[in-house]
Each structure stands twice: as structure tokens, then as C-alpha cells.
């Protein structure tokens, strides 16, 4: 037993959810990075191109081309939307897996049941984003339904599986809350106060706060102006097209593209600061599982936080500094991915001490 404990511990439901959750976040971030570099800007250019084609067709009085151009816009937006959804759902399910992993001591179910629920949860968490990703490519091919394709059907099935597994855990938590507990619960992960965990929790909390402050500032000073500008620029385009004024159409199209960029960077900065902050806070609880030396654990915590701060800050600066800021933001995202991978490897190397302690009666715990 001693040799086994010092190599790799068998997976508990908690470690399975932790490894699966971080794995989902890692792949979701990689998909996001690949999407940002190879799809996002090209797709935005195509959407802009189609809108321009529609406006110029309106100048020429060609209503058929207007309709065809807006159909293209719809198709490009669907392609973009399914890729964003894949990225977002993988990461969101990863977060949920980490939350469920932390909550395991409160789930009053047998370990074997909790483990089955964990596998079920992870299966659904992969099925949904893979299904969503394939929607654009599979379409309605061989579908028994007229509006929903096979990819959507499997994506929805994945969502149902995730909901069922989560409800199973929720049932376990309700059972725990209904039981009487004379001794306060002790848990190796929640009670941990290591330096790496504290750095991650403090940094994460600060990032969440900064994200909310930026979101509040954006909502107070820019959101309404951007919404009014969106309408007035489209109106300008439409009126200028009706008057066959091509230069006014082009000017409005240019401003509309710039507005889209401004909105996108503000929303992305706000969302990424909060998401990375939350990720850092969640990872703080798993530091006892990370089997690396303390200086390395602290170093990876700082790398993760540096990347988590760098990405939203340089995304915001993209409008002023252009591609340079975009490049730094991408590198910052890579920092987060590498630090996360290091922690994931540390959790794989874990020896099982906390899990075996948790299975002992309270009085016999180390």
C-alpha cells in the first residue's frame, strides 16, 4: 500500500472532477486561443464585408443582393457563435466541475455513486461543446427533424446529462444538510492555508473586483452611448444608401466597424478579468492536491495571476496599441494555460494522502 500511495493514487470522485474540470478549462482555453488567432478576426472581416456589400447593394438599388448579403451575415455569425459557445461551455463546465469537486464533503452519497456521477458529468460536459462545434458543419444532414440537426440533438443530450449529474450531487447536499452533525466538518482542501493557495485566492478576489469595477464603469459611461451609436450609424448608412451617397455609406461603415471593436474589447476585458479571477480562487482550494515543491507551486500561482491580469489589460489596450497589444494578450493567455497545465500535472502526481485521510473517522485523521 505504501508504494502505491507514493506513486499515483486511485482517482476519488473529487480528484476525478478536479482533473476533468481543469482538463475542460485547458481545452476550452486552447480552443479560445485558436479561435481568436485563426477565426475571430477573419470572421469579423467577413461580417463587415457582407454588411458593406448589403449597404452598397442598397446604394445600387439591388434589393436581391441586400437580402443575399444579410443571409451571409447570418451564416458567418452562426459560425462565430457556435465556436464561441464551444469555448464558453467547456470553460463553464470546467468551473462547475471544480465547484462540485470542492463541495464533495457536503455530498452525502456513497463514494462509488459520487464517482459514477462524476463520470456522467464529464461525459455530458464533453458531449455538449463537441455537438455545438459540429452544428455549423453537420447542419440538417440525415436529421429526422426539420429545424434541428443531429449535432444539436447530441449537444442538448449532453446538457441534459450535465443537469442530471448536477441534480444528483444537489440531492446529496440536501441529504447532508438534513443530517445532524455534532462535530464541525474538517477538510484538507478547504482548511488549507498554504502560501500558493493564499496568493491565488487573494489575486483571484482582486481580479473579480477589478472586473466588476470595469464593468460598472463601462455600463455607466459607455454602454448607452454605444447602443445609441449602433442605431444612429445603421440609420446613417440606410439613409445615405437611399440617397445614393456612397462616401457617406463608407464613412458610416468604417465607424460601425470601429464601434464593434470598442464594444468587443470592453466586454472581453470585463468578462475575462472576472472569469480568470474566479478560476484563481477555485484553484486556491486544490493546492494541497498539487504535488510540486512549494516554491514551484508559488511560481505557477504568480504566472497564472500575471497572465490573468495581462490578458484583459492588453485586450483593452488593443484599440490604442493595435496588434502589439493583441500579441501580448495572446501570450498572457498562454501563461494562464501553461500554469494551469503545470497544476494539472501536479494533481495527476498526487499520492492520495488527503483522500485516504478523509475516509478515516475524525479521531484517526492525521
Amino acid at each position: 500500500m505504501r508504494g502505491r500511495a507514493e506513486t499515483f493514487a486511485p482517482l476519488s470522485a473529487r480528484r476525478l472532477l478536479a482533473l476533468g474540470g481543469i482538463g475542460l478549462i485547458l481545452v476550452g482555453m486552447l480552443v479560445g486561443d485558436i479561435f481568436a488567432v485563426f477565426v475571430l478576426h477573419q470572421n469579423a472581416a467577413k461580417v463587415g464585408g457582407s454588411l458593406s456589400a448589403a449597404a452598397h447593394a442598397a446604394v445600387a438599388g439591388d434589393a436581391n443582393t441586400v437580402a443575399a448579403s444579410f443571409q451571409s451575415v447570418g451564416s458567418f455569425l452562426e459560425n462565430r457563435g457556435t465556436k464561441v459557445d464551444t469555448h464558453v461551455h467547456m470553460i463553464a463546465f470546467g468551473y462547475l466541475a471544480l465547484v462540485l469537486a470542492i463541495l464533495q464533503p457536503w455530498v452525502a452519497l456513497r463514494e462509488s455513486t459520487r464517482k459514477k456521477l462524476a463520470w456522467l458529468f464529464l461525459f455530458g460536459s464533453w458531449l455538449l461543446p463537441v455537438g455545438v462545434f459540429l452544428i455549423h458543419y453537420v447542419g440538417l444532414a440525415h436529421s429526422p427533424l426539420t429545424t434541428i440537426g443531429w449535432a444539436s440533438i447530441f449537444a442538448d443530450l449532453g446538457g441534459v446529462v450535465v443537469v442530471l449529474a448536477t441534480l444528483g450531487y444537489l440531492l446529496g447536499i440536501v441529504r447532508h444538510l438534513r443530517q445532524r452533525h455534532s462535530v464541525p466538518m474538517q477538510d484538507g482542501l478547504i482548511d488549507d492555508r498554504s502560501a500558493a493557495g493564499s496568493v491565488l485566492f487573494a489575486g483571484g478576489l482582486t481580479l473579480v473586483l477589478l472586473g466588476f469595477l470595469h464593468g460598472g464603469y463601462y455600463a455607466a459611461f459607455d454602454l448607452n452611448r454605444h447602443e445609441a451609436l449602433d442605431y444612429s450609424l445603421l440609420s446613417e448608412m440606410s439613409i445615405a444608401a437611399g440617397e445614393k451617397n456612397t462616401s457617406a455609406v463608407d464613412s458610416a461603415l468604417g465607424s460601425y466597424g470601429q464601434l464593434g471593436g470598442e464594444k468587443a474589447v470592453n466586454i472581453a476585458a470585463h468578462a475575462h478579468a472576472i472569469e480568470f479571477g474566479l478560476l484563481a480562487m477555485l484553484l486556491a482550494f486544490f493546492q494541497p492536491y498539487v504535488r510540486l515543491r512549494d516554491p514551484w507551486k508559488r511560481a505557477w500561482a504568480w504566472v497564472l495571476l500575471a497572465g490573468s491580469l495581462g490578458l484583459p489589460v492588453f485586450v483593452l489596450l488593443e484599440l490604442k496599441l493595435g496588434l502589439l497589444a493583441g500579441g501580448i494578450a495572446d501570450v498572457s493567455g498562454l501563461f494562464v494555460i501553461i500554469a494551469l497545465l503545470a497544476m494539472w500535472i501536479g494533481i495527476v502526481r498526487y499520492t492520495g494522502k488527503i483522500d485516504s485521510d478523509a475516509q478515516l473517522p475524525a479521531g484517526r485523521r492525521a
Partner: protein
Amino acid sequence: MIAARRLLIVGGIGLALLGMTYGVWYAVFAEHQELDGIGKSLTTSFSAAASRDSAAASVALGEYKELKHAYDRHVDVHGHWIGLATILIVLGIGLDRVGFREQFKALLAATLLAGSFLFPLGVLLQTLSRGTGPRVLAVAGSALVIASLAGITLGFARGQKG
């Protein structure tokens, strides 16, 4: 479980369920209809411009403005309720790292929970009314969230020193 922790975890789970239920309603009954409406109103507007019918173009753009206003807020409400719920649960689990008395922690928890519910609710009500009431509710809710998060951050720093 201590009161503040229970409030955050149980409140967070409740808010997540509310956000997900709202998301299901929205996906089935509102999202596709709004997106279709946005696409159609833009096409109608530019087609009308091509036919030199400026009045019809203006009416269609007006429809686009209303639909876009509602669509953006519906998406925001879903995302913010679930996102805030996750933050509530995580802070609930880590609350013993915050170096304040239990009573003050319970006050911070209640403020955060109230703000997390009211802020997206104010945004949602903006789809029904353009008046100041919903905007005031959204601003007040977000102020509660920011103030309580700042308090918890201070409490965490205090806990580390202690």
C-alpha cells in the same frame, strides 16, 4: 454550517437555478425569435433603402433598435445571474479566510446576495420599461455587489495579517 456561509452557498445555488431556468425559457421562447427579428428588420431596412423608401427603412430600423435592446439585456441577465451565483458559492466555501466577526460576514454575505439578485433583475426589467426605475435598480444592485466584494477583499487581507 455558519450562517454567512450557508447564506452564500444556498443563495448561490438558488441563484444558479434561477439563472438556468431563465436561460431555458429564454432559449426556447425568446432567443431565436429575437435573432430572427433582428436579421429581418435589418434586411427590410436596407431593402427599403434600395427601393428608395426611406419611411419604411426608418420603421424597420426602429424595430431593430427595440429588438437589439431586448436581446442584449436578455443575454446579460442569464450570464450575470449564473456568473454571480458561482462567485457566491466560491466565496461561501472560502469565507473562513475572511478576517471579520461572524455578524459582519453575515452582513457582507446578505449584501452580496441581494446585489447579485437585484442587479440582473434591474437589467431584465429594462426590457419591459425604459423608465428610470429599472436603471436605478440595476445601478443599486451592482453597487451592492461591488461594495460587498470590496469588503470581502479587505476582510481577506485582514485575515492574512491576523
